[in-house]
């Protein structure tokens, strides 16, 4: 075991993936000798050469178009989009190409080797364009997998699994806790399963569901609720698509209550999909309406970021409202 922050865990996963398989290629803006603006690709060019880790021109649609072709050729293309806010020029390549490559060709061709890494989320004074959490757009696209890790251990295992998964994966990295989240990480090569949620804390009164950096927020709220005698069960969804409805439903059948929290705006956010699916499966078990604690339906603000965010106090209030319903 080694102590690593989330960035170091990402870097370590990339290093292991590249060492284990010559077909793994990492590229994106500033990814080469500089090692990325967050340093997630530090030293990879030194170790594996310019052919396998390199800068691209500043063109997201080109990066993902290139990545699709490289993956179709048989490489494991690991493309970085510097901020998730800048993924939209590549939206067509991801939604119309990556996601449909296998289906439209009847499995003659696929881009299963593709992984798109991108830092997402707020809380870093990044304003509109360095703060967004766009996972819901991609969750609406059959053919993609969408993965979000919550800590260094998860980041390494889920990223290695994403790179090796035979389907295209969009891997959102919680940049607010890139350095703040520190933990013990196995030094060896390991993978954590995609498509499986994890119960991170057992409880009996209410299920709290989140992913990525928002896990820290619901943990804090759960501790506050615990002092009031409310026992919270916590679930990290980990994979947004395809998502693990069974684990969530089993928990809600036990607790009778569900609260979902994400940073992205409420309307059209992935919490809505989860709420719909869970009320279908757990209608007779529910003791209160499914609660959603999310970002406001506004563009991500700068000066009033603290007010905007679905913080632990908002989650705590929603827990109380649910339990007292």
């Amino acid at each position, binding site marked *: 075991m080694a102590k690593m922050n989330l960035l170091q865990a990402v870097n370590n996963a990339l290093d292991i993936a590249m060492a284990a398989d010559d077909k793994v290629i990492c590229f994106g803006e500033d990814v080469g000798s500089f090692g990325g603006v967050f340093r997630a690709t530090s030293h990879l060019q030194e170790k594996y050469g310019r052919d396998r880790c390199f800068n691209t021109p500043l063109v997201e*649609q080109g990066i993902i178009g*290139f990545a699709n072709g490289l*993956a179709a050729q*048989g490489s494991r293309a690991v493309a970085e989009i510097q901020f998730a806010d800048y993924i939209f020029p590549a939206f067509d390549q991801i939604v119309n190409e990556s996601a449909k490559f296998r289906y439209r060709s009847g499995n003659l061709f696929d881009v299963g080797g593709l992984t798109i890494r991108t830092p997402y989320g707020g809380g870093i004074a990044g304003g509109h364009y360095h703060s967004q959490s766009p996972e819901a757009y991609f969750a609406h696209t059959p053919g993609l997998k969408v993965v979000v890790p919550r800590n260094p251990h998860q980041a390494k295992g889920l990223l290695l699994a994403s790179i090796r998964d035979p389907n295209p994966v969009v891997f959102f990295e919680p940049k607010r806790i890139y350095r703040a989240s520190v933990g013990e990480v196995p030094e060896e090569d390991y993978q954590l399963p995609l498509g499986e949620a994890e119960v991170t804390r057992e409880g009996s009164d209410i299920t709290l569901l989140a992913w990525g950096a928002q896990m820290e927020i619901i943990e804090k709220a759960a501790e506050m609720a615990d002092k009031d005698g409310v026992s919270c069960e916590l679930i990290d969804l980990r994979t947004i698509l395809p998502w693990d409805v069974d684990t969530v439903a089993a928990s809600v059948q036990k607790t009778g209550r569900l609260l979902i929290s994400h940073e992205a705006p409420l309307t059209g956010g992935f919490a809505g999909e989860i709420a719909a699916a869970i009320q279908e499966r757990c209608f007779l078990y529910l003791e209160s309406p499914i609660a959603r604690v999310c970002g406001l339906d506004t563009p991500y603000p700068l000066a009033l970021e603290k007010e905007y965010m679905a913080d632990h106090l908002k989650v705590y209030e929603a827990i109380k409202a649910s339990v007292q319903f």
Partner: protein
Amino acid sequence: MSTATRERAVHQLEFMRGDELQIPTYKVVKQDGTPYKGAQVPDLDQALALKIYRSMARTRVLDERMLAAQRQGRLSFYMQSTGEEATTVGFAAALEDDDMIMAQYREQGALVFRGFTLDEFMNQLFSNEQDYGKGRQMPIHYGSRQLHYMTISSPLATQIPQATGYAYGQKLAGDKRCTVTVFGEGAASEGDFHAALNMASVLKVPVIFLCRNNGYAISTPSSEQFAADGIAPRALGYRMHAIRVDGNDVLAVYAAMQEARRLAVEENEPVLIEAMSYRLAAHSSSDDPSGYRSKKEEEKWREKDPLVRFKNWLLKRKWWSEEEDSALFERERQAVLEALKAAEHRPAPMVDEMITDVYDQPTAHLTEQLEQLKAHIRRYPDAYPKTSGRIDHG
């Protein structure tokens, strides 16, 4: 080095204008089949020349018959490549059979040349259970792994940066193969085109960009698509090799692609080829060109028919005769009709295929959705005749 721009200082204020650059057009033979004086004629043996011509003829016949079949209501949609066969067959003829082709949607000539059979065409066109694409895409979205022909995708220009990436992988693999991507002059307005050229040039990738400049993007004439001298000058801005060829001159296309391939594979130099031609047919079976261009204009281009030009060249070399020509077209018409009749009666794919290939394995919730759908079809079998008869058994 912080910048790749080489400075040359001047001290008089002077702008450069785009129209100072005029790219010439490489032509080899005239319409009557005689080479232009001093023309560099590619070295081509009789067997290859006839394979090219037969492929052009089959493409012409296929397009004629399938549009007619569409008009008879036998298939939903079709796109002809009439007038552009010299470009689409000629480029494929200059490649190795395992060079990758990532085309747009009007390049059936390349597939014919590589040996995609009439049955394979028909199965795709009729979306039947033998279609490699399992009936998921509209007619003309062909693909063949065996023939190194990437399955067509409707969104324009997406294949262009993909070709850059594919070719990058070929370069790393060191297998001395290249990728050719084909697109129209309209698609070259998309951002993906520019992204692809710049990345190919910066990363030194063995990719060839073949633009079919056929004058129209549906109804929009090229004069309303760009102000510059066509597409070829754009390559120069990316520090790339470029050539403009007469796209109705199969020998010119072949020669240009042969040299482009050498540059790509031997020197890792990407190349742009702009083939000048004319879309003699409508954009698709859903389009009517009489609303945006004149019969007179079409007639002018009909006189430049690429099949006639190449046939004339073959006749002059005594490699072909009019009798053989008539027999070939008659044979092709019969073969197309037979394949058509066989394919249109093959059943649609099984409903189970709806959920395969979304992921490498169907997920639990897709399996659940399929079971719900099947239960529904069993309740209303008459409403879903394509699948209800085979829902519980193959």
